[in-house]
């Protein structure tokens, strides 16, 4: 399954829902549902990041690191399954690196 972050918002912002409608916390809920569906169908979820204006670290950490911290998925499920469940599609390598590091650093 492919999900373009632009369909969530062209300008995602903030960590918590209290920061605004298009926060990391709000996106994580969508992400978790799509990941669950992909997992059940043994297919990867490809997140396209490049059609938005920019992504702050707070948004990324809460969205992706939050999946592990909140106990929704394990690091292994997200990064080490075959095929890899969570796949990031971006021309900006720093986003993919950052997201992976937040998932690996997160403690459930």
């Amino acid at each position, binding site marked *: 399954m492919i999900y373009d972050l632009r369909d969530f918002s062209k300008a995602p912002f903030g960590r918590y829902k209290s*920061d605004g409608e298009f926060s990391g916390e709000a996106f994580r809920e969508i992400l978790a549902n799509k990941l669950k569906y992909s997992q059940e169908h043994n297919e990867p979820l490809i997140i396209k990041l490049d059609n938005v204006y*920019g992504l*702050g*670290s*707070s948004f990324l*950490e809460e969205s992706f690191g939050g999946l592990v*911290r909140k106990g929704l998925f394990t690091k292994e499920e997200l990064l080490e399954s075959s095929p890899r469940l969570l796949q990031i599609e971006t021309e900006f390598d720093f986003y993919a690196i950052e997201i992976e590091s937040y998932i690996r650093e997160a403690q459930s």
Partner: protein
Amino acid sequence: MSNLSVPLPKAFDAKVKDGKVYVESPKVMCVYSAESAYMTYEFLSLIESYVFDYNVGVTISFENLEYFSAAASLLIFATVSKCQIGVKDHSKIEVLFPKNDAVLKLMASSGLKLALKQGGIAKVRKLIDSNNQYLSGSEVSIENYQKVLTATLLNLDKHGVNFSNTKSQIFVKGMQEAILNVKYHAYNDEFIRDFLLTKQVKSKFSFHEETGRGRWWQCCWHDVSNNKLIFIIYDDGEGIVNSIKRYYRNSPEHSDKLNLPDSTLLGNAMKLGVSRTGIKERGKGSADIINTACTFPSSHLIVMSGLGHYRHDSAGINTTQLPFEIKGTLVQWVINYVEENQDDI
């Protein structure tokens, strides 16, 4: 009105005139040099005090202004618009523009003149619709981050600041985290609660509740002769330094750090992973704020809060004490966009 019991400092030619207090700006308004910074700050604080402490109308004269710096211009916009938003009768705040043609022209071409004209919150919000260089946003949906970001990017485009895709992402990343910092550090719930408990409800913070929490002011200053974009974000809240001091005061294990100079506290706050909340996943945003300047060649970042001054450029980090205390936090990026264009070729 002539019997008004308000301070009338001679330094600003303050007097009661036409039913209002009249004040004259310093000839030089700048926060970069210690000499003019003190007078600039005193002048802006005096205006705010007239409006919010004494509840009197003010005529703010810039007629003799000869020079204003980018950061000072943002503080002028923040102070004047804050006063304009804070009074119900907009005629209580009158602005007289510079007599000097060159200064007036700069004020007009930069969008500052439009930003200072008479009006309240509706005027401030209209600046977003016209993609002005001077903008103010809050958590209210019609002036939130998404609206202000779009206006900012359109303004940069209009002025020929064409970042590559990568650097545009990095610029927006930094801007996003700086605005988020306003919410987390400037107007956190504890601060607002304590402020409203200790001050009259008529205080300057009551308008934040009425017109939108988390208010910030920003400007894009195009230094065409030096091919630089100066992007500044300011809030008048608690500030990074005071926010950290509050955390230390409430945490006995950190009480020894309260004696550290503001410059050290600010320098520590800008380190990756440092957050006053103590929550492990927080404190990531400072890296985005730093990267925005450090990714661009010949560029730098300045952060001012309390008595702290922090500068980060390709040579490294330098922290110093300011000769005056800045309320809230000011974040300034100076970005050389010509080198950026050359890199893209």
